[in-house]
């Protein structure tokens, strides 16, 4: 975060004039799971980045050993936008899933329709933390496995067991570089959110 000159100017992609409403979905997952790639694949604008400084407990953070108390960390969030109809814009926020970024989560989770959790089968245990953070905040979610090239492909049933997902939690597979598979996972998420609200009524 610096001066006006710290980063090259880019053309501003304004929201179309007809848009009067905006909603957000979270694309959650751990570092390197493909959140930014996913957002790039579906966004109609080149993804944007914001940075927020949060204060977190330093316990357990390797490079802060010996510095007790609290530290400030800059957390970057990449996000994109899709105009869904002339009146409605959808924002997708790539959201780091770690428990230590919870201060940021409070803000992101408020008003979010739901979250798509991206999972890497090579580091599946990392997903537990993300799922816990969402559950604690009552953010409804679906899960999508990002199929990395060269990674062993597991049946979705095994992944469902490994993640201990409830039977109604949607689980899909996608390639974060391929728009079609990403959109399909978003559709599956919103169908789930829709039916959830419908059943509750």
């Amino acid at each position, binding site marked *: *975060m*610096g001066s*006006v000159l*710290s*980063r090259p100017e*880019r053309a*501003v992609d*304004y*929201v*179309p*004039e007809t*848009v*009067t*409403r*905006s*909603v*957000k979905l979270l694309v959650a997952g751990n570092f390197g799971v493909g959140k930014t790639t996913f957002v790039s694949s579906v966004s109609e604008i080149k993804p*944007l*980045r*914001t*940075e*927020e*400084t949060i*204060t977190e407990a330093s316990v357990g953070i390797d490079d802060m050993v010996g*510095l007790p*108390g609290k530290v*400030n960390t800059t957390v970057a*969030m990449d*996000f994109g*936008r*899709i105009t*869904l*109809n002339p009146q*409605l*814009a*959808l*924002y997708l*926020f790539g959201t780091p899933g770690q428990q230590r970024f919870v201060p940021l989560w409070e*803000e*992101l989770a*408020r*008003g979010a*329709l739901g979250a798509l959790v991206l999972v890497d089968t090579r580091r599946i245990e990392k997903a537990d933390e993300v799922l816990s953070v969402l559950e604690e905040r009552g953010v409804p979610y679906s899960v999508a496995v990002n199929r990395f090239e060269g990674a062993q492909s597991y049946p979705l049933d095994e992944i469902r067991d490994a993640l201990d997902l409830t039977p109604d939690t949607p689980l899909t597979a996608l390639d974060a570089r391929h*728009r*079609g598979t990403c*959109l*399909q996972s*978003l*559709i599956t998420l*919103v*169908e789930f*959110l*829709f039916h959830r*609200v*419908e059943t509750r*009524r």
Partner: protein
Amino acid sequence: MTRSRRDPDLVRAYVRTGGRLRPTRELDLVTLVIAKSDPTPGAAPDVVRVMNLCSRRGALSVAEIAAYLDLPPSVVKILVADLMDSEHLVTPTPAENLPEIALLEEVLNGLRALPA
């Protein structure tokens, strides 16, 4: 004392926002705003930057303003809330809120209609 007593980021946010740490109204990262009038002459540099960005062709969300101006969203919220209080910025959002189910249906239809 191994660390500075004051948090430089908080100090900077404090200075940039005229001494406040909280916005005057509830704003979300995706709250849309659009310029209604020119900035007041002599306004603070960050205020002028927000107004210059917003005063062209259409609306932007709080998150987009933060990204384009390279400012933390927490600071942008305070600036935008002030500019809404002074009616320099307005939100195009209609007053009535759609029920969640209607909104979800609209999102679903929109996603299904996108070209793969």
